């Protein structure tokens, strides 16, 4: 996987845990560089929307609304995608493997799927899939946005520049 990415002049990136904790703090997009210094609030997927889902769409909870534009920490699974998605990956409360070529948007993503966005300086980085649970921290954004691939996201997590780091092929093979 890594060799393939390197040969394509793309950068493989590995997640790094931001060792932060404590109460929530407000952050803006231009303060991402100092994100590491901000405390993060633990946010759980199950607190996003009223469950079970009713007969129409989703109802956001007060917890999610309060977390909007706050620094939060999420524990979840990286969605295993078929296509490279530079600059972002999806995080879900349960493991999901997508088959975009065969199924497109007819997927098994739960409603609580979070689009995790790398720092703008890393928008061309491809984050390799990491199995198991991962912890990510960043600034949460709630609301509709259409992504470059046409998908609509409702909850996004903006990472800072130090949330991930580059790895080379030698390191990956070890």
């Amino acid at each position: 996987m890594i060799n393939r990415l390197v040969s394509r002049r793309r950068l493989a990136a590995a997640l790094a845990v931001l060792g932060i904790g404590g109460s929530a703090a407000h952050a803006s997009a231009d303060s991402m560089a100092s994100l590491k210094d901000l405390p993060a609030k633990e946010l759980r997927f199950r607190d996003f929307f009223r469950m079970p889902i009713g007969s129409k769409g989703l109802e956001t909870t007060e917890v999610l609304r309060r977390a909007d534009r706050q620094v939060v920490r999420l524990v979840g699974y990286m969605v295993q995608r078929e296509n490279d998605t530079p600059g972002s990956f999806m995080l879900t409360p349960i493991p999901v493997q997508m088959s975009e070529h065969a199924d497109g948007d007819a997927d098994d993503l739960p409603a609580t799927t979070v689009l995790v966005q790398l720092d703008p300086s890393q928008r061309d980085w491809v984050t390799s899939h990491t199995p198991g649970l991962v912890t990510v921290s960043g600034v949460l954004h709630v609301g509709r946005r259409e992504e470059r691939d046409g998908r609509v996201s409702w909850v996004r997590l903006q990472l800072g520049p130090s949330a991930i780091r580059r790895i080379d092929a030698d390191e990956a093979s070890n």
Partner: protein
Amino acid sequence: MKYSNPHRLPPSLFRSAVILAGIVATPLQAAPSVSRLTPPSELFSSGRPAPVIARFLPGQRFDLQATLRPDSADKTIVGARFVIDGKPVDALVALRDCSVGCLPDIAKNAAIASVRAVSVERPGIHTFSVTATQSDGQTVVADGNFEVASILAGGRKVKNIVIILGDGMGASQRTAARIVGGGYAQGKTIAPLAMDTFPVVGLVKTASLNSIVTDSSPGMTSYVSGNKNNNNEEGVFPDDTTDFFDNPRIEYLSEYLHRVQGKALGVVTTADVFDSTPAGNAVHTSNRRAGTGIVDQFFDDRRRTGLTVLMGGGRKWFLPASQTGSARSESNDYAFSAGDAHSAEIVNRWGAAAGKIDIERDLLAEFQAEGFRYAADKTALDAIDPAKTDRLLGLFSLSNMNVALDKIDGRRNKPRGLGSGGVVDDYGFPDQPMLDEMVAKALAVLERQKNGFVLLVEGASIDKQAHTMDTERWMLDTLELDRAVKVVQEFARRRGDTLAIVTADHECSGAALIGGSIVSDVKLQELARAGGEAHLRDKVVGPYEKAGFPRYRIAADGYPETTNIDRRLLIGYGANADRYEDWRTNERPVQDKEHPFLKQPPLAAHPISAKARDTEGRFLVTGQVPGDRAVHTGTDIPLSAYGPGAWSFTGVFDNTDVFFRLAQAALGGVVTPDGLSPLKPTRRTR
């Protein structure tokens, strides 16, 4: 057949023409060319009159189209006309230039000529041609052919048609489901699948228009249009524009039978309803991923298709964009311009809706305003009285419905999810119906249609779970489909006027029953902890007589009490990506203590691999295909038939043949197929 333009010659003949031209010292004169002629034909592509690619029913509608290229950048195409069997087609020829909106390899001064919704009544092979005129007066002619099939009259007509499609369900998936659901004793089946009791079986060839390996779009549409489509395309032939919805169309079985007989259409699936198989019964698009436009077209063209029942997942497309959870997007919506004859003629001649870019549309409300009763969960579905219901919409999840294993676990209150609930609770839809329950309600509503109906029933996640090589999940989805088959069979048996077929669109994953485990489940877990192929392969896999007969105990709900039995059935994959295998049912990793939950190691130290499941056993099965998922295969697939007309489904036949055999039963009536005529009495000679 005539060639007035050497650009249309087959390559070998073209070389000969150049050599000949050199000998006689006559330079070839530049001329416009035809780079695509639709319907597709070998006559156009290779110059050979056979095999005939496009085939239609008498009166079935389709579009004529040609891509026309001037011989230089300073010229244009100024006119085009189509001829069928020497007679001009009496309809407007829409000429669209390619200054914008065509594929990158199409010159800006190229043009696309179309005539929409033509049809031919007379059976037989027909030749058609396009003649294009360039701005300097030069012309080019290109020929193609198509066939109109004969419908034999005189038999008893079937009233209802039910197509039951196990997506990705090849022979192996059926066999595995039979072993798990029914079991074997000394080599004999204890309880057959319902689909095994269908009296007629045939083998279907599944290639699409552009590949020996089809995807689900042309896999479905071949059955209900009689024609092959390109992969990813539904109810259309390929074209050279970037618009997803303007391709040359082919009339679907639902549209045809609604137009000539007033039949209704039902679509029931466990997938998102915009997915390839359900959409491939009513929606015309070259992009199976255009969700917003696809669900809009389901509704907008309901009077052309007779759409009466629509059930599955996919609520995300039905919610206005401002409603949280909506996936509606302008980028995949559709609208036909009234000012451009190329697309306006789709509205004028097909009678199709014009569409609109309207992501704030509340499609859920519009369905209900049109008289569709809406069910959001099983409880609501159960509460619907079919005797008082003309139309039915069921949307039981935002995207795909959960698979049978997880739905059943939810009903059994088996915690497999994140918290104390099941996976269905994690998804927020704990009350989803099973496919057989949806089908029972659909049949009850559709039975009230006095002119009959066409019903599509899809078990979608046999394929989706085979892609991820999640053996137990596709096994149970096959059992779920078979329970729906039984419901349809009982309906058809009771009525006597319903033809039902069970088949697939293609096989998925190259699944193979390689034998059985020779160890208990407890021992299997021990071997998984020891890890490696020496333990998980050599001490587990029992081929031949070592496999014995795995015995799964079936609970009252019709599904195995557990799939983690001793001496379990083992499945290998012939079209697999790399995967780790421990043979056990995949639990949610949150229950797996081996996962690094909150141990907070540097996550960069995690193995970086797409092979994420069952890694603890360290039994890596290397695959033959790149990527992380098993793929569709091009092997033939079984088709079983039940009811009047079933006997026409014997032999080995093309997927498009299915359409004509269904149509024969509905239009001309049930006739004895070729080769099955009764033995003629012989005269005694003295």
